[in-house]
């Protein structure tokens, strides 16, 4: 109790110095909190994007399809509609749909470009994906028509507008080249560059005709009613329908998640340097303090305070600076993060540049207790580490020299 009170009072000796040291730490920690907020926001937006447009909550494919880098009809399977119906009746499943994907060549005028052709079930796809809600120009696909949708960046690259006619050249399942003329009904902007740059969407029945795969699909995608139960439900589907391999969205996005984690670590290290610099400031403050108070340290030792008590006294002072700086940083950082969580940050200046996240237009930060608390604890720990050298020196100093010369 004495040490707690004494160390707290000691901070009031040089108020300006205490405030300046705490503020330095506060600035470093605030930057860390804001950056973590943006990384958390980017992760959240990216995961949502992946679930809405790419992976759903999970997918089923033929064995080897997920591991193969290339989209291929070799992994197509039959009786897809029956499997979808079977999936829909499983417990925990909210919706399911079949998709048929393969490669193709888009030809418009004199231009041609390789694309991914994806047949989507107009009746059920919206229950699982948001692709049909992401139309930014033109209109949606109508059942029974020969229309198509394409990604925003692909349409721009090909200088195409809704209503334009183009040719899609695909190789059917039996191996024959099959050209088909289509009208561009609409343009989708999902924010996921992999989709917006490469994908052409057709009604599933049309894709099946083109690829000569009646009732065929390359994947079954599903949405569950409780996201936390995705692994459990996926396992259950694997047991019930073992002919296909079932994957959770996290498994399907493992590369992206790993990459995002790496980025988080990298950013964390970069920003930690600022905080470490602030911690060096704390270390200097503590060294100044022990030199100024050498005689007092000697007095306390003469009164019977043990070296470890002196050590604790200075560590506590460092911890208090960490707590003050951390507390202000939590408030400031949280305000900034919450503002960016509400209003977001425009990404217009980046244009089509791939920022490494499937995000378009605006990046929204996301406040998490974990990140804020983590930064706060990190600040206190760093303050303790920074104070340790000075505290150790104070504890080990010669009492007689401290009393006589005021030096440790």
């Amino acid at each position: 109790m004495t040490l707690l009170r004494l160390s707290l009072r000691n901070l009031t000796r040089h108020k300006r110095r205490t405030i300046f040291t705490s503020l330095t730490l506060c600035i470093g920690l605030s930057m860390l909190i804001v950056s973590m907020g943006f990384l958390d926001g980017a992760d959240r937006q990216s995961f949502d994007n992946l679930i809405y447009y790419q992976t759903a909550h999970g997918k089923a494919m033929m064995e080897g399809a997920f591991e193969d880098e290339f989209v291929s009809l070799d992994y197509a399977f039959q009786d897809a509609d029956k499997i979808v119906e079977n999936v829909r009746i499983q417990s925990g499943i909210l919706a399911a749909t079949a998709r048929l994907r393969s490669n193709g060549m888009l030809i418009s005028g004199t231009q041609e470009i390789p694309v991914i052709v994806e047949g989507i079930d107009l009746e059920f796809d919206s229950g699982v994906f948001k692709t049909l809600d992401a139309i930014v120009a033109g209109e949606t696909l109508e059942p029974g028509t020969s229309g198509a949708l394409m990604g925003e960046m692909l349409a721009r690259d090909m200088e195409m507008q809704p209503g334009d006619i183009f040719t899609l050249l695909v190789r059917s399942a039996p191996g024959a080249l099959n050209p088909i003329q289509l009208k561009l009904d609409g343009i989708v902007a999902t924010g996921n560059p992999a989709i917006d740059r490469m994908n052409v969407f057709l009604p599933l029945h049309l894709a099946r005709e083109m690829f000569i795969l009646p009732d065929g699909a390359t994947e079954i995608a599903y949405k569950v009613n409780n996201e936390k139960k995705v692994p459990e439900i996926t396992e259950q589907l694997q047991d019930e329908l073992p002919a296909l391999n079932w994957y959770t969205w996290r498994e399907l996005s493992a590369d992206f998640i790993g990459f995002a984690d790496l980025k988080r670590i990298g950013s964390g290290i970069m920003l930690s340097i600022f905080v470490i610099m602030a911690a060096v400031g704390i270390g200097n403050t503590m060294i100044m303090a022990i030199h100024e108070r050498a005689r007092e340290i000697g007095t306390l030792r003469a009164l019977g305070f043990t070296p470890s008590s002196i050590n604790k006294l200075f560590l506590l002072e460092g911890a208090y600076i960490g707590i003050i700086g951390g507390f202000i940083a939590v408030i400031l950082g949280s305000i900034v993060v919450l503002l960016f969580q509400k209003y977001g940050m425009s990404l217009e200046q980046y244009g089509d540049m791939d920022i490494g996240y499937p995000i378009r237009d605006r990046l929204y930060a996301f406040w998490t207790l974990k990140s804020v608390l983590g930064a706060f604890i990190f600040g206190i720990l760093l303050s303790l580490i920074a104070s340790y050298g000075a505290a150790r020196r104070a504890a080990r100093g010669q009492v007689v020299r401290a009393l006589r010369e005021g030096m440790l």
Partner: protein
Amino acid sequence: MVNNIIEVKGLYKDYSQGRVKALRGINLDIPEKSFLALAGPSGSGKTTLLNIIGGLDIPDKGEIIFETRSLKNMDELALTKLRSERIGFIFQQFNLIPVITALENVELPLEILPDYSKQRRRDAAKDILKRVGLEGMENRFPTQLSGGQQQRVAIARALVKNPAVILADEPTANLDGETGNKVVDLMKKMRDELGTAFIFSTHDQRVMDRAEVLVHLVDGRIQS
């Protein structure tokens, strides 16, 4: 029969790799309840002797017997414990902690002792501050007190744990003559009331005159 509280036996201490000989064979018996002055010019070894008696410094040769226990065989923690329980210190520059009040300064030595509740600490500190004539000034910070008052707080801080001995290094050197005399009077009064031995260094003749036992040190040796 009067018991010795401290026995100094053949004490030698050098500094600066033997170039400065601070103590050269000091032998001294200090009885209980003594009021003893160590007199001598600067550099005569007064402070060194006090530091060694208080377990703050270690002699090169010789030993201190404190209440029948030799300090020679004690490690740092045992010496710290001895100081916390049996020895009080008073310093020339008072050495009060400036960020806490007079009352809290006096409570400080009790906070590291077991068996002292918060209330007991507070009562003991208030009582001793009253005895040294600082009633009503408990909540003042050291900077709000005069030099004499600060030294009174230091005396109260040294006395509050009922030590066997108080070691005071030039307790009046930073005070004017009249205040210095009052401080010495107070120390003597406390010795009479509480039975605590006082050993203090001084080079002030008026203080020496008030000592019951006067030990003169010259060049690290006892002269008389």
